[in-house]
């Protein structure tokens, strides 16, 4: 599955990353960045309520395919600018992390 397929299937709204398309092979939900660094698998979609600029570096370093911000939480503007620079996809959703994970498991 690609990030484009995921975007469509879960009804996500893209807020950064431009035309980047990546493979998605799993999902990881966590807000502690050290845990994400060591536990998130390569090519996963990462759901977090953290919206500060540091999530961009974590996604880049841990080979995460995309970041999903749940529950309509607003994302810092400098995070969006940095993500666009680095080609890191960030999506927003009104759904909860749980709802997103349940929907993902059915794909």
């Amino acid at each position: 599955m690609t990030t484009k397929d995921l975007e469509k299937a879960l009804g996500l709204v893209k807020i950064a990353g431009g035309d980047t398309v990546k493979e998605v092979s799993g999902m990881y939900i966590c807000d502690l960045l050290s845990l994400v660094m060591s536990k998130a698998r390569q090519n996963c979609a990462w759901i977090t309520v953290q919206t500060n600029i540091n999530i961009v570096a974590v996604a880049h370093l841990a080979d995460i395919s995309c970041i999903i911000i749940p529950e309509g939480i607003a994302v810092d503007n400098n995070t969006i600018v940095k993500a666009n620079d680095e080609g890191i996809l960030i999506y927003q959703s009104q759904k909860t992390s749980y709802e997103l994970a349940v929907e993902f498991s059915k794909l």
Partner: protein
Amino acid sequence: MDKSIVLKYDVDGNDFSLAGEASSSVKKVLLSLGFDPEIIRKVSIALYEGEMNMVIHANGGVITVEISPEEIHMLLEDTGPGIEDIELAMQEGYSTASDKVRELGFGAGMGLSNMKKYSDVFIITSEVNKGTRVEMVVKNKQ
């Protein structure tokens, strides 16, 4: 790649928005040199944790990375407050990070243990009020 490459970074301790820049830069260099993804992942995790520790606890520092075909050698030096009890600091879950830093998603108390876990050689020395020196080596697959 015959000779080794040396990269040096001044880590700004006051700017959280720049945190991770050195690690990201090293990752890009390793990718361009064609290193194995698993090696790059180990270096990325170990170095990012070290870089963040410098920003969070030590008001910045200097990172020197030497890349050779055999290994990636990382040296992190700061003149921060130092670590009083290294054994305690190495324990997973132990953290002295402030609430402000925790709100950003840091302070899980996994930094030093991740650094040790993802490097093949990990040496830390620290002196209170003088600073901390961390040496890490990730060996390349031969």
